[in-house]
């Protein structure tokens, strides 16, 4: 383990990264991402070899990212840019739609993680929040004037209903944890299945659209939906929703960082005893953290109903589970949720492209997701690697750099 492999300025430069905890997190996430792509490439090569199809990993990832933005680059011609490409296109809309939903789901998981609670139940909170928002809008819309006034009244109303129902459903595992000491990991997983089953039953037995064969509610009236303004109507994406997601991120960041509630939440997560001496009610803190987390999940569900489907139907995509991945990749930092959600938005938006253009199953994205989390989980491995290469954390900042420096 020699220190002399790099000249001094480079050492200092690297030390800055290894020593600094936020930058370190970003570096670890980036390293995990690269490693995950490499390992997934090997899996793709082997899978292609076994199935007799010649998959080219570089081509796959290029098409994946390019496709997510509506193919701005002409990959197979000498020209660099595709003629007539505009940033407002269907694939871009899909990517940003996924990003928007993932920001809310990621924030939901991140808030809980900050309070040292592992909310795997965002999926269930999202399912019920989405159902409640759709039903409430279908019921209330006839009593509200149409047009812009109706839109301005009903969009906040729908999101609020989603947040309340999601929040209440999140409060259940919170209360079970606080007052009965029931492990929230287990209860939220059970509540996910219960939410999906109950929603399916409610819609198929009571709220199904009688004109349809499928398990789907009546459609939300057009003026109560989040419609595309810049993006085409059919694209299932509304810029308003993305702006709301970014605002929510800033709001969560502010609440966690600058309010006494946020302080209690973070301290309960890190140092339960200190929070108690500080006057925080530990039980109530657990319940409110889970409620806030569930409310954010419920908003994600309401957005899915109001923006993507225009109703509620069975087969809600696993946005809530992806939110866990987003939050972990972001190091549970609200601001970090934005790039992490965009990354997974790109993966989802581009998965259609690799399917149509290259015949690669879109499930590859799920493999990539697993690999990213796998390598995110091993920061120490990257630190050890850094040490072996001679990049040691500054002794002064070794406290933030963590162990591994024998």
């Amino acid at each position: 383990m020699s220190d002399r492999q790099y000249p001094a300025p480079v050492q200092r430069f690297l030390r800055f990264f290894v020593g600094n905890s936020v930058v370190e997190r970003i570096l670890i996430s980036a390293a995990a991402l690269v490693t995950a792509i490499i390992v997934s490439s090997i899996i793709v090569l082997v899978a292609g070899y076994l199935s007799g199809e010649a998959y080219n990993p570089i081509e796959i990832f290029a098409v994946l990212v390019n496709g997510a933005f509506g193919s701005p680059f002409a990959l197979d011609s000498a020209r660099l840019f595709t003629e007539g490409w505009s940033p407002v296109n269907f694939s871009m809309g899909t990517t940003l739609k996924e990003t928007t939903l993932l920001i809310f789901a990621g924030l939901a998981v991140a808030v809980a993680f900050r309070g040292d609670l592992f909310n795997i139940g965002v999926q269930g909170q999202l399912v019920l929040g989405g159902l409640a928002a759709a039903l409430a809008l279908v019921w209330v819309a006839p009593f509200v004037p149409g047009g812009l006034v109706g839109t301005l009244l009903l969009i906040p109303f729908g999101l609020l209903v989603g947040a309340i129902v999601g929040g209440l459903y999140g409060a259940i595992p919170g209360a079970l944890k606080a007052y009965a000491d029931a492990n929230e990991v287990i209860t939220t997983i059970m509540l996910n299945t219960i939410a999906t089953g109950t929603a399916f039953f409610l819609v198929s037995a009571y709220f199904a659209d009688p004109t349809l064969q499928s398990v789907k509610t009546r459609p939300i009236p057009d003026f109560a939906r989040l419609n595309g303004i810049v993006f085409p109507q059919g694209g299932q994406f509304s810029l308003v929703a993305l702006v709301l997601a970014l605002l929510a991120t800033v709001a969560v960041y502010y609440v966690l960082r600058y309010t006494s509630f946020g302080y209690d939440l973070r301290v309960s997560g890190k140092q339960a005893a200190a929070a108690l001496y500080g006057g925080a009610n530990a039980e109530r803190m657990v319940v409110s953290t889970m409620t806030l987390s569930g409310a954010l999940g419920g908003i994600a569900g309401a957005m899915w109903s109001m923006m993507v489907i225009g109703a509620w139907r069975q087969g809600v995509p696993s946005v809530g589970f992806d939110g866990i991945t987003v939050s972990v990749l972001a190091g549970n930092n609200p601001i970090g949720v934005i790039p992490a959600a965009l990354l997974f938005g790109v993966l989802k938006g581009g998965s259609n492209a690799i399917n149509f253009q290259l015949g690669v199953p879109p499930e590859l994205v799920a493999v990539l997701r697993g690999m990213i989390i796998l390598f995110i989980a091993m920061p120490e491995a990257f630190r050890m690697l850094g040490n072996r290469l001679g990049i040691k954390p500054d002794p002064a900042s070794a406290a933030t750099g963590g162990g591994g420096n024998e």
Partner: protein
Amino acid sequence: MSNAPADGSTLASVRDWFANVGRIPRIVFGSFFVAAVFGAVINVVMPGSRASTVVGIFNTSFVESTLRIAVPIVFAGLGGIFAEKSGVINIGLEGLLIISAFTAVAVTHLLGGDAQSAVWIGLFAGVLASTLLALVFAVLVIEFRADQIIAGLAVWLVGLGLGPFLSIVIWGSVNSASIATLNTVTVPGLSQIPVVGPIIFDASPIVILMLVTIVVSWFVLNHTSFGRWIEASGENPSALDTAGVDVHRVRYVGVVLSGVLSGFGGAGLVVGRAGRFIGSGQTMIAGDGFIAITTYLFGNYNPLGTAAAGILFAGLDALQIRLQQIPFIPAPTELIRLVPYVSVIIVLAFVGYTRLPAEAGEHYESGEE
């Protein structure tokens, strides 16, 4: 193989065990016993009535299907005990079940899919796959000090990603083609014993293996020095270290054992009963790995209590399948399907407190402090 401790009479040791096994298994066994007596009374007093039709569900074939459904839950639950007792919380059991189920079907399929030998090879290939993934997990958490929860989550997501993806590569669909399943094993003579005979001695080899594994796990954990090392590794690793036993090595064995056992669970599910891999949604495992975690919390890390809880959940599942076939049961099937999940929450709400091993979830480094 005797499951009675060396000292004391059998009856006394049964009573001892009943007293020590924990509240949940006691409730489970107690209600099984009461239900059996109650059912017998109803059948004798009012034969042919609706009540006796409902009671009629609980016949030997109900018990057989319960045991078959229990396979992934009980194996993964037993595996989870070894990992968590040694100090490593493995919430990736679900992923281990998925990967072993997929690998077992894939290998059997590639070997032709019909011959019994191919099915057996598939079973062990599935166990191998799960063991390797558990080994990766072990290296992550023991060598590289990864957060056990996040690494376990990764194991789940890797399984959830790889299974369906490779299914599409092989079969062009997230669901596999069908393969043969293992033939039932009939033990001559013993299978003639009334009630117990056909259930235990005329059964799928996987079910028999499961019953044997329950007893062996109990014996290993309670009556061998390895079992004491596992316990110490989770409760007081520095004492174990002082006693000259390598804590890391014990934890490696604990985690790898969780991989081996989960492998038998996942592969056993497909070669014993399902005969195919279903990769849509949450895959065919559909949360069995997480239910397995609940079972060992209920069973308080005792293999017998864990198995009892696992069999109870499987029984609820088998029950809801049968209730759907009775015409006069008013509840809709979607809601009956949720009974096992709701009961987990209710039971957790009343007996939520479970004491984890003191050092579970904590990294141990020799010579720290």
